[in-house]
């Protein structure tokens, strides 16, 4: 793909210090959210942040490596089911152990899937990832004596940093405060790690592959190996998001492995703008609000979301963040002219 629009990597030109100037206040605002808005909004924001981690991972493939995965529901599901299995078979309660277990499980599954998928690009890559995610879905669906089938598996309130949430304590309070802050902390760590990855030589190599595969090969980048590594990192991020999502939902079902959820992950990335670092984060949070309220207000929520998607792709292909940046740049140009 050679048609990379210009001015889509402005973040590269910024020094880390300038990022801190606006990133820290946002983090502080997010941390204060539970004290400012009602618990329901905080819980929704918590969902948005978990999705944001998933889409951040997804976007390492789409935005930075140029590979469109239509099967990221698989890795989200691996995270969720890893937690559920740890509860069911190991009676684990600690959230930290859940995340650790999820990372191990995601590495195993993504390594296997990635080995198959990264041999191909473009639409073949998309369909391979989709088909593999469907394999996992059908297994979760069929092997009900292990996975609970369509009933799914329940996950009780986890221990955070070793602290037990007392029995009978208000779950809403837990989700909107303790657990919200936990999700936020993991989110911030994930954002920082991803930031470092995409600005490292490794990240630059991925972008070189995306922009021109042949040229990247000439400068000696081992393309398949880099793609494989990107796939691995991407899957693990999405897996962590799945692990964080389970306690919010309380249960995991094969729904989250089914391919339309992969479509939603792509939707989120495009909604925010996948050629930006922050685009997927914004997209995930906004998507979560959009869908929740669409489902609440009309039975024709699918048509509503579909229309948004079509309009978005037709009119605002750079997504919310991309469009905002363009508007901002436009306004600045105008200001100079004055």
């Amino acid at each position, binding site marked *: *793909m050679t*048609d990379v629009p210009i001015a889509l990597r402005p973040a590269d030109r910024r020094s880390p210090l300038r990022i801190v100037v606006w990133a820290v206040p946002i983090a502080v605002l997010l941390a204060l959210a539970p004290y400012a808005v009602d618990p329901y909004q905080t819980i929704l924001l918590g969902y948005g942040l978990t999705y944001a981690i998933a889409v951040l991972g997804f976007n390492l493939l*789409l935005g930075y490596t140029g590979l*469109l995965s*239509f099967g990221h529901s698989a890795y989200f599901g691996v995270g969720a089911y890893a937690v559920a299995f740890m509860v069911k078979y190991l009676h684990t309660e600690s959230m930290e152990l859940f995340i650790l277990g999820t990372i191990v499980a995601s590495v195993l599954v993504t390594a296997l899937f990635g080995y*198959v998928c990264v*041999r*191909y*690009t*473009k*639409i*073949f890559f*998309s*369909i*391979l990832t*989709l*088909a*593999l995610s*469907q*394999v996992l*879905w*059908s*297994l979760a*669906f*069929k*092997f009900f004596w292990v996975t609970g089938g369509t009933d799914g598996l329940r996950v009780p309130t986890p221990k955070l940093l070793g602290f037990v949430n007392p029995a009978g304590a208000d779950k809403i309070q837990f989700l909107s405060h303790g657990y919200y802050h936990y999700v936020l902390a993991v989110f911030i760590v994930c954002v920082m790690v991803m930031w470092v990855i995409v600005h490292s030589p490794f990240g630059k190599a991925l972008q070189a592959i995306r922009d021109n595969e042949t040229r990247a090969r000439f400068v000696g980048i081992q393309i398949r190996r880099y793609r494989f590594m990107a796939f691995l990192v991407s899957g693990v991020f999405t897996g962590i998001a799945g692990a964080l999502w389970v306690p919010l939902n309380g249960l995991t079902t094969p729904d989250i492995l089914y*391919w*339309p959820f992969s*479509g939603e992950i*792509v*939707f989120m990335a*495009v909604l925010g703008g*996948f050629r930006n670092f922050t685009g997927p984060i914004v997209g995930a949070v906004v998507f979560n609000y959009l869908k929740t309220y669409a489902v609440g207000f009309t039975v*024709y929520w*699918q*048509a509503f*979301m*579909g*229309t*948004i*998607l*079509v309009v978005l*792709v*037709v009119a605002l*292909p750079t997504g919310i963040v991309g469009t905002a940046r363009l508007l901002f740049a436009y306004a600045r140009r105008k200001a100079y002219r004055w």
Partner: protein
Amino acid sequence: MDILVIHLFNALLYASVLFLIAGGLSLIYGVMRIVNLAHGNLFALGAFITASAVGQWFAGSESAWLYLLLPAGAIGAGLVGAVLEPTLLRPFYKRPEEYQLLVTFGILMILEDVMRFVWGPYPLSATTLFGKMGSMNVGDWIYPRYNLLVIAIGGLAGVFLWALIYRTNFGIILRATSQDMRRASALGVNVNLVYVQAFTIGCFMAGLGGAIIVPSQSAVLGMGVDALVLSFIVVVVGGLGSLEGALFGALIVGVIREIGITVFPEIELAVLYLIAAVVLLVRPAGLFGKPT
């Protein structure tokens, strides 16, 4: 021995419909390089249109003329395709494929609700056509004649499509456009016209699949999403963009499903995906596909 014949019929029945759906999907991809995620919903649309033509507008009629209404769904789906391509898809050919996939994903969601809005939540059926033909004896077994009609239509559609692509001028233009759109255009081919024709044919096939299956089954909401996933298995096994691939993929899926249900009822669904996964491991571009 008779039971083997019955199993074969069942497998062919399933394969015929799958071929119509997956063949259309593959044709569209082959010519336009677009994977149409809304394809399953065009199949559903065909089913709903024929069901309401036979089961509602002309309900109660016992006339053999009703069989002429069968293609209504195919025509309807084709018309929708003819409208969708120039309006919603054409702007995206020069854009990266993630946009193409997403726009068809959006169309999928919209069509799903349009069908619910038009036909309501209840299943529709057109079983007069299925019942009227009766059954015939196959040894000790009896088998619905209508199913054989479906198999015949599936087979004929395959032959027609093959003839259209390999034995007509239009087919030559189609293949030329598919291989090198720019050069075809330079040689005077009206690419836009070819695209809209190919897309319409693809949608027509999906609609035909829905239309011929609805008398023996029924039109239900959500059937499109399931059909899409199954046709993905077919194209994964057969190879995307290859008509032969769609045919063999559909046959393989039809046979394996039949064996799966008969021998391993517990894992009926997983068997299909596992086969797809195995094919992917061995030949990631499918049995008939050419990797990029």
